[in-house]
């Protein structure tokens, strides 16, 4: 028995909602960052599912570029987190509020 493409899309939506919740709820910058990765991955899953459904390789090429950008984003983001930790001694995003109005 084959799995309909909708099942993959539903799983992707569920993972995206989980990442969404993580970004809104958690205050540890590292965990927020991991939740962002979770959302990126859920979108990758729907890209792959659509590529398979339409028989178009472009979906997989898009995932390739998303992965490249995600890798760069993680490297720069973690560097920023380390820099913040060095100067303010915290990774709690509620403590980093210099720009608060």
């Amino acid at each position: 028995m084959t799995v309909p493409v909708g099942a993959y899309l539903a799983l992707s939506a569920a993972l995206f909602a989980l990442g969404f919740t993580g970004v809104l709820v958690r205050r540890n910058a590292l965990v927020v960052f991991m939740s962002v990765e979770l959302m990126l991955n859920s979108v990758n899953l729907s890209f792959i599912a659509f590529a398979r459904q339409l028989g178009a390789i472009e979906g997989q090429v898009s995932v390739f570029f998303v992965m490249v950008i995600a890798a760069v984003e993680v490297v720069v983001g973690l560097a920023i987190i380390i820099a913040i930790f060095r100067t303010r001694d915290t990774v709690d995003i509620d403590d980093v509020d210099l720009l608060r109005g």
Partner: protein
Amino acid sequence: MELIIFVAAAIGALAGGVGVIASRPPVRSALSLLLVLGSLAVLYLALAAQFIAALQVIIYAGAIVVLFLFVIMLLHARTGEARAEKLRGQRTAAVLLAAGFLGVIVAVLRSRPGAALEAAPEGFGTAQAVGRALFTAYVLPFELASVVLLIGIMAAVVIGRPSGTRP
């Protein structure tokens, strides 16, 4: 057969996703993320995307999660989270928003029932097929990606070095 693989991988991915946002020590979140990434690699294989599945394991599981673990260990001990909420009702609002978002997407999915998948064309999703697309139609974005990676490396070095030192 495909159904069994899908259900197993989906359970793994969802359990890992809950683990990422619910576990208290960040190390456990990182390992849960690893579970999600592994399950997704299995699903990519089921969707005839061998090359992307391999990339997923190498880049995400091999590099990104390891980087997360390094940083967690570097920042050791003081990465705990205060229990008190600064913003009242933040948690409830977040869960409600996410549930509403999920509801909207599921409603959209249900309004357009997708057709069952046909057999993938021969050689779909192999390194050869993806590589051919990358080096013909998408060669410019591919080259730009290398520039972006280089800029990322330089940015990490510049931002990450201790303040006051010259490179």
